């Protein structure tokens, strides 16, 4: 079994005073680090930067470790476009971030000979002609609450996390407020489920607390099967203690005996860092029997997924935790009544739980001031496609897509023209450039067939054929269908078949009607959320780009030249 050992030097805390003393010590350690006379070198190591050689850069930096130089492994900061990056804080100077550093550049960066690689200063003021990172639109337009520790703390260090405020909310729930008060704050904050559903967490928690059966469980859903969304991975890699704290608070408030975190198996680094966080928290005594002498018992288990998209659905996820095939079931009973092992279970998304500590510490009122009328707080968003920049950002709800794409992500790359943006992963329709000024929150995009969902946006350019893209999205759902109920299992392959007919130049105008009819059946008759939205991307593509479908069918031409219709295959298809 993958045992992640806790840090040996951590003491065991058994009372309120113990924790306060430990926190004071951690804070002092943190201040000493940044105000001392050592050079502090931090390397951003996350899944995305490892792919670009961040581990080599880290190894190169370690060679310079000495009495006067500290080297730290922090996580990525969401700015994929500047990875791998190294932050150097020299005594008496603010920390300077250098981007796109290769291992060979490290010596020169540390001596200050490569100021051309400097991206910005991680401080409000500029320094020596290097602008502040806040002046960079990528960082300047963000509102970082749950990602404020990303790239700042060492994710493997519980002391770093505690110095930056981790477990303050947990502490408050344990000693300073009742469970009812905590639920009241979460309800006032009106934090809604970040996985895409948008169900208010406060209501869920209240019914979780009311459930009488024992034991009760909290399950954190960190299974991001959605292609091109990695907000939860980013959170796990950057600040695992924040997620853990959110789950522990939920355990105390709902009276649950055990917390679970179900992490997608695709994220080895996220799993490793989270396991380390759990091991350290256990050693400190924040998890276990009689937590800090309060009499509360909280157990914790980490479970990992096996690459099935459907396991993001709550009931499927619970089956997967129970070691069987992850297939959704009919509701009711809802999981709050009968969930994991038929016991009351409250399931929340990672990002939702990551918001909880700040809500508890700062109050629901504070949180409710951020965002829009119906969608409070901030949202992590990932944007991909031919843009100048890439990454994960945290922005307030109500931002427009125009602002997000053009200001924060720098607009389209040279030679690429915006054609549309696929929203809500594979669960919603695309939007065209006419829709980019709608403020984005949980509900606002539904009128035009889009969805905020889990905050993933994929932009496609003039080279992408919408028929081919629609086929890709439908084929994704076909592949990921759990095969339990018939409409989804047979309907999606049927749709792919029709789309292939069109792509090969054998489509007829009746096919468009057939698509609509088949889609209606899948949407209305499927059991779970996957089937109910599987044809939505396709419907959206037809809604906004019907002309392009017709060109394929009527003229036998793919305007972008990507479909088999435009190559030799078309002849084959026609002669068939």
């Amino acid at each position: 079994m993958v045992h992640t050992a806790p840090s040996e030097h951590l003491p065991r805390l058994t009372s309120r005073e113990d924790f306060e003393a430990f926190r004071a010590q951690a804070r002092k350690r943190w201040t000493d680090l940044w105000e001392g006379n050592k050079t502090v070198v931090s390397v951003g190591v996350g899944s995305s930067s490892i792919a670009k050689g961040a581990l080599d850069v880290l190894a190169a930096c370690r060679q310079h470790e000495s009495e006067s130089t500290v080297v730290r492994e922090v996580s990525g900061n969401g700015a994929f476009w500047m990875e791998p990056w190294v932050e150097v804080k020299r005594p008496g100077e603010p920390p300077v971030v250098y981007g796109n550093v290769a291992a060979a550049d490290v010596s020169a960066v540390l001596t200050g000979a490569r100021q051309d690689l400097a991206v910005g200063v991680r401080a409000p003021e500029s320094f020596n002609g290097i602008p502040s990172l806040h002046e960079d639109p990528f960082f300047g337009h963000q509102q970082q609450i749950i990602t404020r520790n990303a790239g700042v703390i060492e994710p493997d260090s519980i002391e770093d996390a505690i110095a930056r405020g981790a477990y303050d909310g947990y502490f408050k729930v344990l000693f300073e407020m009742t469970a009812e008060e905590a639920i009241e704050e979460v309800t006032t904050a009106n934090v809604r489920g970040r996985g895409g559903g948008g169900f208010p967490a406060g209501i869920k928690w209240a019914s979780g607390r009311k459930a009488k059966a024992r034991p009760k469980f909290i399950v954190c859903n960190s299974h991001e099967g959605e292609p091109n969304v990695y907000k939860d991975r980013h959170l796990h890699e950057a600040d695992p203690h924040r997620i853990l704290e959110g789950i522990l608070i939920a355990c105390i408030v709902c009276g649950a005996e055990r917390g679970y975190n179900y992490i997608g198996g695709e994220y080895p680094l996220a799993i490793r860092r989270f396991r380390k966080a759990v091991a350290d928290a256990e050693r400190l005594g924040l998890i276990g029997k009689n937590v800090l002498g309060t009499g509360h018992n909280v157990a914790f288990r980490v479970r990992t997924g096996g690459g099935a998209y459907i396991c993001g659905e709550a009931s499927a996820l619970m089956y997967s935790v129970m070691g069987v095939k992850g297939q959704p079931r009919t509701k009711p009973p809802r999981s709050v009544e009968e969930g994991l092992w038929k016991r009351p279970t409250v399931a929340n998304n990672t990002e939702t739980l990551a918001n909880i500590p700040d809500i508890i510490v700062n109050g629901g009122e504070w949180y409710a001031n951020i965002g829009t009328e119906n969608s409070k707080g901030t949202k992590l968003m990932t944007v991909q496609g031919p843009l100048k920049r890439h990454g994960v950002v945290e922005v307030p709800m109500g931002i427009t897509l125009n602002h997000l794409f053009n200001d924060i992500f720098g607009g389209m790359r040279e030679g690429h023209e915006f054609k549309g943006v696929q929203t809500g992963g594979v669960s919603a329709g695309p939007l065209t450039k006419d829709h980019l000024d709608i403020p984005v929150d949980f509900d606002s995009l539904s009128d035009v067939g889009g969805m905020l969902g889990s905050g993933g946006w994929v932009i496609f350019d003039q080279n992408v054929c919408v028929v081919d893209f629609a086929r890709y999205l439908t084929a994704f759902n076909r592949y990921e269908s759990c095969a339990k109920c018939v409409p989804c299992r047979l309907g999606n392959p049927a749709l792919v078949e029709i789309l292939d007919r069109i792509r090969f130049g054998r489509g007829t105008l009746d096919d468009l009607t057939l698509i609509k009819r088949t889609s209606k059946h899948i949407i209305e008759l499927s059991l779970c959320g996957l089937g109910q939205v599987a044809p939505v991307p396709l419907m959206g593509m037809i809604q906004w780009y019907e002309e392009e479908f017709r060109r394929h069918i009527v003229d036998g031409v793919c305007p972008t030249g990507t479909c088999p219709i435009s190559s030799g295959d078309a002849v084959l298809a026609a002669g068939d």
Partner: protein
Amino acid sequence: MANANQTHEMLPVPAPFTGRKEIDLDAVREMVSHFHYEDFEEAQELILSALQEVNEIFGWVSPEASEIIARHFGTTSERVFALLTFYADFRTQPRGHHHMLICHGMACYVHGSQQLVQQMQDTFGVRDGDTTADGNMSVQVVNGCLGVCDRAPVVKIDDTYHGFVDAGTLTELVNRAVASRSEVTENGENDGSHGTK
């Protein structure tokens, strides 16, 4: 363009791979013995983790290994096999000497990953899940995402990511990976498996 409706097999069926590293069953027994559980429920929860570990270390899970795991957790090997085939991360066939993941997430798709899948099929005769006839390279198309979208399209060969890959560079990458293995064989440093031409 790949076509799901294509039923005819234009490419040679991969021959059985003889040079594979067999799963060391003693190692599996040793590994499984570290999974402690207190009750039935916890045992069930741990099955997937144990399978993942075997899959991680050996690249696949054999029927013998699943039998050991099934016994340890008090269940049947049929039930374990059902898990292996339901979850996409598991392989029930051994990997090649190199293992390639072709990212087929949406960002890679809009940058043309479909052509890479096609290229592997046309040039090397391997589809998703297949291993080349000489056992050098197995290929897996990742329906989710490798999460390096700023370098799309991306492939991962063994532990190395390669970004901005097109059909030309893909062939070169595969050939280079295969060639590096031949060198090892010539130096006599390989694991005793058969060499390449």
